[in-house]
C-alpha cells in the first residue's frame, strides 16, 4: 500500500530532479541530507576552534589589524600558566565551584528526598521549587542585586532580623569578604532545583521491593538510607555534580550581572577575566591561549561526564 503523502511529493518533484535522484544511491542521498549540518558544524564550531588554536601561538591583537601577527610559540601559554593573578582568578573560580556544588548537592538531595515522600500538594511544591531554574541568569542577577541592597534589600533585612545586626551595616556585593559568598548564594538558589530533579529521578528509580526486603530483615531507616538509597542515587548525584561543575566553571552572565568581577577582582571568575583580556585589553593571541586552556579543562571534565552518563544508562 502506497503512502498518499509520498505519492504527492513524488508527483510534485520536477521531472529532471526526479531523474537525477533516481540515479543516486541511498548513501549519496543520506550525505545530501547531512551535508548542510556538517558544513554548519565545521563553519561555526570546528573552524573557529582551529583558528583559535592557531592564534594562541601568535601575538595577534584584534584592534591592530594593520600589524601582521608574529608566531611566538608557547610564550602565551607560558605567561598564563606562570601568572599569579590568573592563578588567583582560578582560586576564585574554585571557591565558587566547590561551595556551590556542596550546597546544591546537600540542599538538592534533601529536597528530593522530601518531595519523594507522598504528601498533599506534592506537585505544587515541586513546581514552586523548580521556578528559579526557569528564569534567565540576567533577570536573576538583577533581581538579587535589589535583594542585596543594604538600605532596601530584603536579604539584608532578614539577615539583620536573625543576627541582630543593622541591615545597612554590611554590603553583600560591595565587601571583599562577603562578595564571593553572595554569588554562591545566588547560584545555589537558582540551580539547586536542577540537582533536586536529577536526585528525584534517582530516588524514583529505586524499586519498592528492595525497601520491603530490608524491612523484613529489620533494617533500620538509617541503615536503609546508607545501604540502599545513597548507593543507588550516587551515580545520578555524580552526574549532577559533573554537570554543575562544568557549567559553573564557565559561569559568566550571573556573576557579571551581580558584581562585574568586583570588588577588586575577588569575584572575577576565569570567564570574566578571559573576556577582559580579549575585548577590553585586546590581547587576542593571549586570550586565545587562555580560552584553549579552559577548553581543554572543560573537555576533560566533559569526557568524565559522558562516562558517568553511560554508567547511569547501563543501570
Amino acid at each position, binding site marked *: 500500500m502506497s503512502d498518499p503523502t509520498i505519492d504527492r511529493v513524488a508527483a510534485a518533484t520536477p521531472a529532471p530532479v526526479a531523474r537525477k535522484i533516481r540515479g543516486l544511491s541511498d548513501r549519496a542521498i543520506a550525505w545530501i541530507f547531512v551535508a548542510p549540518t556538517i558544513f554548519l558544524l565545521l563553519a561555526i564550531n570546528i573552524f573557529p576552534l582551529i583558528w583559535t588554536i592557531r592564534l594562541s601561538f601568535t601575538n595577534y591583537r584584534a584592534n591592530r589589524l594593520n600589524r601582521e601577527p608574529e608566531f611566538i610559540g608557547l610564550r602565551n601559554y607560558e605567561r598564563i600558566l*606562570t601568572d599569579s593573578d590568573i592563578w588567583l582568578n*582560578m582560586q576564585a573560580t574554585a571557591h565558587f565551584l566547590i561551595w556551590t556544588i556542596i550546597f546544591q548537592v546537600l540542599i538538592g538531595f534533601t529536597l528530593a528526598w522530601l518531595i519523594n515522600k507522598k504528601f498533599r500538594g506534592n506537585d505544587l511544591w515541586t513546581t514552586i521549587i523548580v521556578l528559579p531554574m526557569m528564569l534567565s541568569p540576567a533577570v536573576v542577577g538583577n533581581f538579587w542585586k535589589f535583594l542585596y541592597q543594604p538600605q532596601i534589600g530584603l536579604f539584608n533585612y532578614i539577615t539583620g532580623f536573625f543576627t541582630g545586626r543593622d541591615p545597612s551595616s554590611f554590603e553583600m556585593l560591595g565587601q571583599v569578604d562577603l562578595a564571593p559568598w553572595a554569588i554562591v548564594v545566588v547560584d545555589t538558589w537558582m540551580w539547586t532545583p536542577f540537582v533536586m530533579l536529577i536526585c528525584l529521578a534517582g530516588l524514583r528509580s529505586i524499586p519498592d521491593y528492595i525497601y520491603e526486603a530490608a524491612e523484613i530483615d529489620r533494617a533500620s531507616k538509617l541503615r536503609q538510607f546508607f545501604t540502599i538509597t545513597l548507593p543507588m542515587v550516587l551515580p545520578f548525584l555524580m552526574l549532577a555534580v559533573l554537570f554543575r561543575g562544568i557549567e559553573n566553571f564557565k559561569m559568566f552572565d550571573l556573576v557579571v550581572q551581580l558584581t562585574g568581577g568586583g570588588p577588586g577582582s575577588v569575584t572575577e571568575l576565569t570567564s570574566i577575566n578571559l573576556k577582559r583580556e580579549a575585548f577590553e585589553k585586546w590581547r587576542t593571541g593571549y586570550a586565545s591561549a587562555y580560552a584553549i586552556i579552559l577548553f581543554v579543562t572543560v*573537555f576533560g571534565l566533559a569526557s568524565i561526564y559522558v562516562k558517568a552518563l553511560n554508567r547511569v544508562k547501563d543501570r
Partner: protein
Amino acid sequence: MRDFLNGLVRLRRGSWEMVATIIIALGVIMLMQPFALWAFTYSFVTTLIGTVMFIIVSHFPE
C-alpha cells in the same frame, strides 16, 4: 584491583579510562588549588595528557 591491573596489561577500555579520568581530575585539581604555583603551571599539560589519553583509550576493546 586485580581486574583493574589485568585490564591495564591487556589494554582494556575500562581500566585505561579510569587512569585517564584520574589524570584529568588531577589536572583540574592542580589548576585550582591555592597551595603551589608550580602545580598550577603544570596543570594544563596534565589535563591535556589525560584528555588525549581518554580519547585514545575509549577506542580500546571492552
